[in-house]
C-alpha cells in the first residue's frame, strides 16, 4: 500500500495548505486597513511595519503610533480617538495581558512595531524596564504634568493614573474606629472575618511586595500568614465580589481597590448600588506607613519607530483634560494635579500614601508569590 501517487497527493495538499495560509496572511493586510479597523477614524490603519513607506495608500499626514496595552477600558479608546482627531496621528492597538505583551516585545527585539507599552501595576512596568525594552521619555510637558514620584527614576515609564488598595467594611457591623492598619487585619480579632481575593492576583502580589519592602520579608510573611488564617472563606472572585460578600455577611472587612467601589456606586444595576451604599471605605496606615497605591502607566519602547508621536500621545494622555476623563470614567486618581476629580473621590479627601518605589513591586513580586504559596494564601 505504499504508493507514489499517495505521497504526491500528501505533499500537494500540504503545499495547498501552506499556500492558503500564505494567502490568509496577504489578505489580512488590505482586510485590516479597510474593513477591520475598529473605528471610522482609523480607516487608514496600516498593520505593516510603521516605517514602511512603500505602501500605496499612505497614512494620514500625522503618521501613527503603535500601542501594546494591557489596560482594557473604553475610556482609553475614546481618548485615542480624540487624539487622532486632534493630531491626525493614527493610533494602532494590540490589547493583551501585560506579561505576554512584554514577552512579545522581547521576542520581536529591534524589529518590534510597538512604540508604547501601557499597563496597570508598577511591578509590571518595572519588569518591562528590567527586561530592557524601554527607553527614557524626554518631554518637558510630561515632566510638568506628572509628578516625579509617579514616574520611573529614569523616566522610562510614567504614571497615567493611580488607585489605592483600601480596607472596606460593613457599615452596620464595623465601627471605622476599630480599623487602623493592614497589619491589624492579620490579628486574631479578625479571625474568620477578612475577605480578600486570590493571591494569584497581581493587586495582592504588589501589595505584599510593598510590605516586604517596608517591613522586611519575615514580617511580611507573618502578615500574609495572618491574613490567610483570618480569611472568612477561601479566596474567590474579584475585588467587587469581596464587597458583595461583606454585604452578604460572609465577612466583615475586606481589601479592595478604590475604583471598584466607585464602579459599584455608579453601576446601572440597582443591587450593586445598594452594595456600594452599605460598605465604608477606610484608608489604612494613615498614622504609619501610608495606604498602598498602585499605578497605571506607559513606557516608551526602546526600539520605537514613532518616538515623537508616542511622546505626543503621552503628553496628551497626561494633560488635564484627558486625566479628568480617565478619572471620571474609571474612578482612578489622576496623576495630573490639574485634573478634576469625580465627587466620590473628592469625598474621600486627601490621604497619606505608601512611600515605596514602584520598582520594588516588580523586584519583590516573585518573593511575594513564593510567600503566598508558602503560607497557603491561595
Amino acid at each position, binding site marked *: 500500500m505504499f504508493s507514489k501517487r499517495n505521497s504526491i497527493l500528501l505533499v500537494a495538499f500540504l503545499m495547498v495548505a501552506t499556500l492558503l495560509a500564505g494567502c490568509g496572511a496577504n489578505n489580512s493586510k488590505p482586510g485590516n486597513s479597510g474593513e477591520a479597523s475598529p473605528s471610522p477614524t482609523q480607516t487608514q490603519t496600516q498593520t*505593516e*511595519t510603521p516605517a514602511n513607506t512603500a505602501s500605496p495608500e499612505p497614512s494620514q499626514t500625522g503618521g501613527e503610533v503603535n500601542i501594546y496595552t494591557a489596560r482594557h477600558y473604553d475610556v482609553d479608546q475614546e481618548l485615542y480617538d480624540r487624539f487622532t482627531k486632534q493630531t491626525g496621528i493614527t493610533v494602532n492597538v494590540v490589547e493583551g495581558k501585560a506579561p505576554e505583551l512584554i514577552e512579545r516585545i522581547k521576542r520581536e527585539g529591534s524589529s518590534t512595531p510597538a512604540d508604547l507599552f501601557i499597563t496597570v501595576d508598577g511591578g509590571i512596568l518595572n519588569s518591562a524596564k528590567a527586561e530592557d525594552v524601554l527607553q527614557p521619555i524626554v518631554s518637558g510637558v510630561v515632566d510638568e504634568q506628572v509628578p516625579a514620584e509617579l514616574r520611573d527614576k529614569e523616566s522610562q515609564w510614567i504614571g497615567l493614573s493611580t488607585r489605592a488598595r483600601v480596607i472596606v467594611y460593613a457599615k452596620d457591623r464595623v465601627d471605622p474606629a476599630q480599623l487602623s492598619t493592614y497589619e491589624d487585619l492579620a490579628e486574631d480579632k479578625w479571625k474568620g472575618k477578612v475577605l480578600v481575593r486570590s493571591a494569584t492576583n497581581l493587586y495582592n502580589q504588589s501589595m505584599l511586595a510593598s510590605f516586604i519592602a517596608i517591613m522586611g520579608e519575615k514580617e511580611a510573611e507573618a502578615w500574609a500568614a495572618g491574613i490567610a488564617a483570618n480569611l472568612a472563606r477561601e479566596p474567590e472572585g474579584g475585588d467587587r465580589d469581596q464587597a458583595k460578600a461583606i454585604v452578604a455577611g460572609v465577612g466583615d472587612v475586606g481589601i479592595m481597590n478604590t475604583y471598584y467601589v466607585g464602579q459599584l456606586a455608579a453601576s446601572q444595576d440597582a443591587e450593586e448600588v445598594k452594595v456600594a451604599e452599605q460598605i465604608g471605605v477606610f484608608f489604612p496606615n494613615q498614622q504609619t506607613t501610608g495606604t498602598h497605591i498602585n499605578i497605571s502607566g506607559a513606557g516608551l519602547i526602546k526600539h520605537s519607530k514613532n518616538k515623537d508621536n508616542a511622546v505626543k500621545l503621552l503628553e496628551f494622555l497626561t494633560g488635564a483634560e484627558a486625566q479628568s476623563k480617565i478619572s471620571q470614567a474609571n474612578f482612578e486618581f489622576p496623576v495630573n494635579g490639574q485634573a478634576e476629580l469625580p465627587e466620590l473621590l473628592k469625598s474621600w479627601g486627601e490621604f497619606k500614601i505608601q512611600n515605596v518605589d514602584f520598582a520594588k513591586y516588580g523586584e519583590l513580586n516573585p518573593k511575594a508569590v513564593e510567600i503566598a504559596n508558602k503560607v497557603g494564601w491561595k
Partner: protein
Amino acid sequence: MKITLLPRSAGRHVNGWTMTSVIGAAVVLLPILYVLACLFRPPNDNWSKVKQFLLTDYVLGSAKLVFFTGFFAAFIGVALAWLIAGYTFPLRNFFKWALVLPLAVPPYIAAYTYSSMTGYTGIIQATLRNRFDVALPPGTIEVMSDRGAIFILTLFLFPYIFMMTRVFLERQSASFIENARLLGHKPISVFFRVVLPLSRPAVMAGVMLVVFEVLSDYGVANYFGVQTVSTAIFQTWFGMYDVDSAMKMAAWLMIGVIGLFMIERWLRRSKRYASTTSRSHPLRPQRLKGLAAWGAAAFCTVIFLLAFAIPIAQLAAWSIQYGGKIWRSDFADLIANTIKGAGIGTAIILLIAIVSSRAARMFDSPFMQALSRMMSAGYSVPGAIVAIGVLAIFIELDGRLAPLYRAMGKDDGALVLSLSLAMLLTGYVIRFMATGYGALEAGYEKMPRVYSEASRTLGRSSLFTFLRVELPLIKGSLLSGFVLTFVEIIKELPLTLLLRPFNYDTLSTRAYQYATDERVFDAALPSLLLVMIGLVSVLILLRPERR
C-alpha cells in the same frame, strides 16, 4: 511489512516524497517541539521552588478537576445519548439537537454568568431578598469553588460525549441492543451490559476531548480560584516573571497528555468493538410511556435549562439592559473578524487533517501514529503557551526571510509574517488540530477500506478514489469536524490575545476586555453574539441529520 518494502520503494521513489511530507508536518509541529525543547534546558533557581510549592497541590487539583468533570460529563452525556437514541418521549426531537448547544458557550463566560447570577447581587438572591425578604445564609449557593468549576465544565463540555455517543448508538449498535432486548434484558440491564461497553470507543473519544479542554482551561479555574496545572503555569509566568519555568511546566503537561493519548489508543486497540461493515441498520427507538416518558423529558429539560437556556437568558437580559452603553460602531467588524479568522483557520485545519488522517490510514505505522498524535497535542496545552511557541517560530522566520523583505523594499529587520493574521491562524491550527483530526480520523475509521480498494482495482488512481469515493463518504465527518473546530476557534481567547495583528478585535477579546475588569454586564453583549454565531454553526451541523 515496512522493512521489506524499503528496497523496492526506495528504488521507485528516489526523490523521497514521504520525506517531504514529514517535513511539511514538521512545520506544524515546530512550535510544539519548541515548547517541548524546554525540557532539555537546565532548570533555573525558580524551578525547584515551583516544584516545592506549586506542583503537588496543583497537579492534584488538575487531577481532581479532570476526574470529576470527566466522570460527570460522561454520565450525563451517555445517559442523554442513550435516552435519545433508544427511546421516544415528548420533545425528544428538540433535545436531539438542543443538547448540543452548550458547546457554543465559552465556559469562562458561563462561569462569569453563573457566579454573577448566584452572587449576592445576582437575580436569585436579589429577588429572594427584595420580593420575599428571604436572606440566604452566605455560602448557600457557592459556585466559586472546586465544585463550581466541575459544575460549569461538566455542563458546558458534556455535549462532546453526548454527540459522539448518540451518533454511535444510532448507527452502530442496533443489532446488539435489539438482541439484548429479545433475550429479555430489562432496560437498565441493557444499558449497563450492552450499551455502555459497546459505546466505549465513542464515549472515550468524547471524554478525551473533555479532558483536554479541562487541562488547558485557564479562564474558569482562575476565576473560581481552583488550583490547576494551568493556573500554576500562569502564576509562574505572571507572578514570578519566569517564562522558562512556565514553559517547562507546559512541556511536562504536554508529555503527560501525549502519554494519555497513547494509553487510550492502546486500550482501544486491544478491544475493537466498532463494527465497520456496511450492513448495520439504524437503531429504532422504543416509545416511552407515562411516568417514564415525562421523567426522561424532565431530565433533558433540566440539563438544557442549566447548560443553555438559563445562562443565555441571563446574558440576553443583561445585553438588553446594558448593551446600549457599550455599543460601538465596530461591532460589525468584531463579528466579521470573528467569522473570518475562524473560517480560514478551520479550512486550513481540515485540509491538513484530511491529508494526515488519510496518510495515517494508508501507512499504518507506529511512526505515523505518533506523528499524528503529536500534531494533536496542542489541544491540551494552555493557548498562551502554544502562542509563545508560535511567536518564537514566526519571529525567527521573519529573521530568516529578511533578505527577501529587503528585496521587496522593506526596512531592515521588518516584521511581516509575525504582524500578519498568518501568525494567529497558525496558532489556531496548532491548538485545534485535534478536533478536526479527530473527526476525520473517526470518519475514516467508520468507512470500510473496501470502497477505496474496489475503486483502485477498477483502475482509478488514489487521487480520484479520494475525491470521488472517500470524500463523499466522509462528508458527514468533515462537516462535524468543521463545525466543532469553528466553534472552538470562535470561543478561543488566549491565542487571539497574544498573536493577533494590530486593531484586530474579536467578540471573544471584547468580552474578555470587559469581563477581566469585572464588568460582567458589559461583557454580555459580545458574549451573546459569540454564542449566537456558534449556535448558527451548530444548527448547520445538525440540519442534514434532521431530514
